[in-house]
């Protein structure tokens, strides 16, 4: 039982990271109808940037500044590579984001270097032990950070004028433009938010470990999360993120019991298998809006 609860806490921490990333995906998808495959690369570059900033500024200032800088990177990417393509087929834009992902990943990867780099987080791999249940500090911190960010994003959409404009543009872009909403600003803000969220997720994903290129693979696992939750649902991003995180942690923990014959841990596969199983039943994910198409 304590083992199960420990795995759960780990899963919730990991799931919180997925939630942060998935929020970025969903915000971009809602504003332009496109999946940005560049998110994993932005996440990795966020963590790398923070690892450079935190020795000079301290961890917390570095996280905020790093997040903002990655938001600026996302803004530039949106303006240069994505904006000219607005109105073209969504698949074409999605492929462009794959190109962006490759370029950003290579540039960021060049800064990883050969010495192990850390983001300088205060948690390390310390943990509380309550009645035999291990809870790692970094997982608790990731969970709290995700909760705060989700609340902030929700409040942003609910209470600010630009948030309202973004909701209007997501509902019907042309109608929103007719009402005076600047769709360009909506695109820019959504990309900046996604970049910021990705950088924060990257910091928590890298907490406690030296940085390496595999961070990008973790970012990739946010794709099954948004498919599971539904591409256009913020609630789906939260539920999907936590679900995938917990399932992955459980499979990772009980791997030797379930698949005694397989040497490599099957945990990293779990998100994709869950995604396939759910899509068999619900092609638009758990909370996604079913597309109604007219000819």
């Amino acid at each position, binding site marked *: 039982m304590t083992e199960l609860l420990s795995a759960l806490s780990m899963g919730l921490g990991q799931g919180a990271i997925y939630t942060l990333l998935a929020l970025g995906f969903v915000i971009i998808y809602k504003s332009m109808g496109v*999946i940005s495959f560049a998110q994993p690369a932005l996440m990795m570059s966020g963590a790398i940037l923070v690892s450079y900033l935190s020795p000079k500024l301290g961890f917390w200032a570095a996280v905020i500044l790093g997040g903002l800088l990655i938001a600026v990177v996302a803004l530039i990417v949106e303006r240069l590579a994505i904006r000219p393509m607005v109105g073209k087929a969504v*698949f074409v834009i999605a492929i462009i984001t794959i190109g962006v992902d*490759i370029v950003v990943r290579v540039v960021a*990867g060049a*800064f990883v270097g050969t010495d192990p780099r850390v983001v300088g987080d205060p948690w390390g791999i310390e943990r509380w032990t309550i009645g035999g249940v291990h809870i790692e500090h970094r997982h608790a911190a990731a969970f709290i950070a995700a909760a705060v960010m989700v609340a902030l994003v929700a409040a942003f959409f609910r209470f600010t004028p630009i948030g309202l404009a973004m909701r209007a543009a997501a509902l019907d872009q042309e109608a929103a433009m007719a009402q005076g909403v600047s769709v360009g600003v909506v695109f820019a803000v959504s990309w900046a938010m996604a970049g910021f969220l990705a950088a924060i997720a990257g910091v928590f994903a890298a907490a406690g470990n030296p940085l390496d290129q595999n961070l990008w693979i973790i970012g990739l696992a946010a*794709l099954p999360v948004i498919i599971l939750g539904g591409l256009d649902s913020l609630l789906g991003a939260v539920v999907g993120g936590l679900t995938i995180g917990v399932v992955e942690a459980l499979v990772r923990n009980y791997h030797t019991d379930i698949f005694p014959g397989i040497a490599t841990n*099957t945990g990293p596969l779990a998100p994709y298998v869950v995604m396939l199983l759910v899509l068999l039943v619900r092609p638009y994910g758990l909370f996604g809006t079913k597309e109604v198409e007219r*000819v």
Partner: protein
Amino acid sequence: MSHTRVKGRPELYTAYAQDMAFLNTRPKQVGVLLIVIFAALLPMMVADDLLKVLGTGLVLAIGAIGLNLLTGFAGQVSLGHAFFVAVGAYTASWMAGDPDGRTMGLGITFAPAWILGAGVMAAIAGAIVAPLAVRLRGLYLAVVTLGLVIIGGFIFTEWASLSGGAQQGREAPVPVILGADLTVSGAYTKEQKLFWFFLVVLVIFAMLARNIGRSKIGRAFSAVRDRDIAAGVMGVELTKYKLIAFVLSSFYAGVCGSLLFVANGYFGPERFSGGFGLLLSVQFIAMILIGGVATVSGSIMGALLIALLPRISSELPSFLPFITTAANKHPNVFEVETAMYGVLIIAFLLFEPRGLFGIWHRIRVYWKSFPFSY
């Protein structure tokens, strides 16, 4: 077939069959013939190391044509092409492998047998995945096929008796035709023989794809791509044709996979798992976007360009001295090579969405209407 050619008016078609002919104009017929002759003579003119790169390009072109059938003609975006290539590669090496070796093998060395076997096995894999895929549309499909690469890479890495396991790998199939082993240099070198072999296979599959494109199936693909619901309303069976597109594309991927490592003779599961597997998938996407969507000739051009990229970037340091060849310094040629895939994808989509084929098309139209530029 009563199509009469009017003297002096070579492009006046009097029958639909003329318009839809395999190569519908005289310049195309002559041009293709010249290109094939040029390609056949190439091994005599080019050094062996470059020939090996170009040969790989020819093999990749088969896979790119397959992806173009699915993504270009039928409009179904797949990021899972690397998975089907892997299925083909392992089926071929299993069929051709040594029965008493470290890894599984059947000992069927006759090349056409294991090429077709690889294609069929990949097609079966495609048919298994297709029922899930035909339910999904657009970006959902792209992400699911991406998941396929991750799961497939894991399976191949774990299945050590088939793949040789991580960091070890297994031998690729050895092409033997009529008792002659093409990987042994004789009167002609290994690279020359393999190039001719790949060229023959590519020509066969390119002709097949071109014929599919102008058949009933090809028209149905275009209808599905342009508006699948409208196509359904007109009586195109969506499920059936999406399934056909998947199976055909996987078949081509399997054939590509069976030949991809023949020149190297050895390959490990790392090529298909994690980041490298996804990179392979993205490379195929890049090939058809850079070459030209929904064209066979574009697929071949794109594949050759992508295959030449490592070579091009390794030449760069002599022109741009700030790029190093040392892997531990930045920016090095490996990073430049990888980044170029991304830059090329972005640049072509932004500035020339029809790819190399579009550039060629523009040149052709310019000279056709010369000196009137409109």
